[in-house]
């Protein structure tokens, strides 16, 4: 067995290559820069294109253009860059342009701390678009996840024709780890469905599906627009047409909740507490639960890998057997609001920390003990 040694950001880049990504545009920002640096090494030998935009807005624009030409595209940034991505993100969401966006989160607000980790952007990613269109957000806990989830992200982006986020964290992106890439079974690759019929109507689709794709530059003329459009891609003010397409944008994601739900769990017999966490924090949670087990206390854990759409069914099912739910987050309480909403009838405790440091297993054990 040969182990690879890489940081999460390199694993994202390698995952993107495995997924068939052929275009990257980005702008340097700590702690996401090395995704870009890796893509710049990986894409050219495979005939792909890797570009540094003049800013984050441009980088997203380049990705939108390349995606509409049919490429699988990736970009990477951190919180301040996500702010700048916002208007283009709304375009990509509303106009169903596939892409994968890596947010290597750092401590916010604003410029915050470039080299300090936090899960700062969990609600921002969900609501950082005009129109409130649902998004898909996957969250890795280690380098292995970065590799694997990036492939899932591309698959979802292609199938649902939308931007998909990887909510990484400085503490994963810039932490190097040994990882056995050969032991990872990747999902089969998905490509956006190409239109094969007679007359192409660019945004015509079933009520809970994405429309078939044709690239700009192909034989059939394609219209793409950021403005409110009907199936034909022209501006519309017809309330029925508008409402049908708004609902479709929502339904195509929400109706697929089950399939998009990714998670890991460690169920321990006779445990009455379930600790729910995500990202790098779930590693400390697992350490804490393992230490408690050695001391004779059984505590179960659930590590979410899909944050949006909220895996409501999974949460309800997994929480059922427990008296107490404990949510731990590397912020002052963002995702806990979703869990509280879904598990309204449960006793729910929360611990959040946002000081630029990882939450230590010892702290989590203390929180578990202090019921």
């Amino acid at each position, binding site marked *: 067995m040969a182990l690879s040694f890489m940081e999460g950001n390199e694993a994202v880049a390698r995952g993107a290559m495995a997924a068939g990504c052929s275009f990257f545009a980005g702008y340097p920002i700590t702690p996401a820069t090395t995704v870009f640096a890796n893509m710049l090494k990986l894409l050219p030998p495979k005939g792909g294109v890797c570009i540094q935009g003049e800013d984050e*807005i441009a980088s997203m624009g*380049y990705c939108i253009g390349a995606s509409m030409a049919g490429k699988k595209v990736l970009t990477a940034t951190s919180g301040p860059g996500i702010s700048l991505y916002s208007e283009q993100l709304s*375009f990509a969401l509303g106009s169903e342009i596939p892409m994968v966006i890596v947010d290597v989160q750092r401590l916010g607000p604003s410029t915050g701390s470039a080299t300090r980790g936090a899960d700062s952007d969990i609600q921002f990613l969900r609501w950082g678009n005009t129109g409130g269109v649902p998004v898909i957000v996957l969250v890795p806990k280690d380098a292995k996840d970065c590799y694997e989830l990036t492939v899932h992200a591309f698959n979802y982006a292609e199938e649902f024709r939308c931007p998909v986020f990887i909510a990484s964290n400085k503490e994963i992106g810039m932490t190097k780890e040994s990882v056995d890439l050969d032991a990872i079974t990747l999902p089969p690759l998905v490509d956006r469905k190409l239109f094969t019929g007679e007359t192409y109507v660019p945004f015509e689709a079933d009520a809970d599906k994405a429309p078939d794709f044709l690239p700009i*530059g192909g034989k059939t003329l394609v219209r793409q627009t950021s403005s409110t459009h009907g199936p034909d*891609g022209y501006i519309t003010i017809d309330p029925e047409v508008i409402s049908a397409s708004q609902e479709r944008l929502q339904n195509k994601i929400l109706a697929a909740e089950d399939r998009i739900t990714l998670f890991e769990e460690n169920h321990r017999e006779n445990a009455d507490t379930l600790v729910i966490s995500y990202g790098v924090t779930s*590693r400390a949670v697992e350490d804490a639960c393992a230490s408690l087990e050695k001391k004779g206390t059984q505590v179960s854990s659930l590590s979410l890998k899909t944050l949006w759409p909220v895996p409501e069914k999974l949460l309800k099912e997994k929480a059922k057997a427990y008296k107490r739910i404990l949510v731990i987050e590397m912020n002052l309480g963002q995702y806990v609001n979703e869990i509280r909403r879904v598990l309204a009838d449960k006793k729910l405790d929360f611990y959040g920390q946002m000081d630029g440091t990882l939450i230590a297993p010892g702290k989590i054990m203390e929180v578990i003990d202090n019921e």
Partner: protein
Amino acid sequence: MSSLLNTSRPPVFCPGCTHDRITKELDKALVKMGIPADKTVIVTDIGCSGLFDTFFNVHALHGLHGRALTYASGLKLADPELNVIVTMGDGGLGIGGAHVLSSCRKNLDITLIILNNFNFGMTGGQYSATTPSDAIAGSEFLNQAEIPIDICEVAQSAGATWIGRYSGHDADLSDHFVTAMQHKGFSMVETLGMCTGRYTKRNKLNVAAIDAMIEEMPSKNGVVEKNQRPEYGERYRAIASEKTVYPEAVTVEQQVILENPKRDDIVILGSAGMRIVTAGDIVCFAGMVAGLNASMKNDYNITVLRGQSVSELILSPEKIGYAGLETPSIVLALSDEGVQRRKKIFPKLGPDTLVVKEASVTIPETAAEVVTVDYKALKIKRHDWALASLGFLAKRGRGITEEMLIPALKARFNEKVFGMAMETVNKTLKG
């Protein structure tokens, strides 16, 4: 083919608007060039110029204000065969200035047509980046306190390879468009025109006045000789095609079987320039040589040549969870800055922890086993202290052994650097 105009969606401009004429001239130009509709895309943004994409039977992408050039660049890079035409008003020019500059510098084969009509027509005639200071615009007095931009002059200094400034009523406008589109590289056509719905209602502007304005401004009519250079896409692909070696992930084979593999949490406390991260890499490689899992978490400033450099390493036969260190088993204290950064750990250490301290470094009180090494006396330079410490650890069999360390150095360095590294390591390993 007599026209690419979309007969089902005729232009809807105000009567007398120059945009209407420019639409027809662009159509004439496309017909003259005979370029295929399915290999042509019109990219637009917001405002009246943003209506252009709907009037033509070609591919169309309509996006956000000022960002049209960003989509156009992505399209052109992804599909170099595409003819990419961008229309933008003076509004998009102002809001997307950075993209205009970048397009001039990059020189991708895109044609930008700026429809300058001196104000924001759609939102009520507010002043734009090109509104004259003495004009009456919809932003009260604000334009009086600024001067308009000459985008052609800006484009020239930004490196545009083809620039033309013409009246929207120029009899030869379609020919100018053809020349611009035929240019291999970024071409920018600024057209000056009348916004009859807003601007000309309160300002004296007509065809003759536009001609006079153009006469007064620096002449721009085609190729900018001093800026000539290869088209960006071709240049990019030529350079990129030389990068033929795909860098596979670095892997380390297990070469050593440890009798008693155990977990070690190692922290190296140093400063920028001491090659702390490289030493951390080597420790992790050494662990992987012995089939251990490894993780490395670094802490250094954004200004990488100053300040502390701390590397936290875990070697473990088990899967590594939390990658921070609660209580290290080995501490390498190599600089006061690094020690200060983690001073809180020292009082928590027990006698099982080994602290290797350079003679010049001061550490807080601790119950750990402290060994002082005088690297200066060993004639080891400061930037090699971290590396030398690894030899010291290997000699004692703490965290790593000699048979783990040497393959790790081989894996991390090329032959020449490996030789130099071994010289350093031997001073502590054999000394």
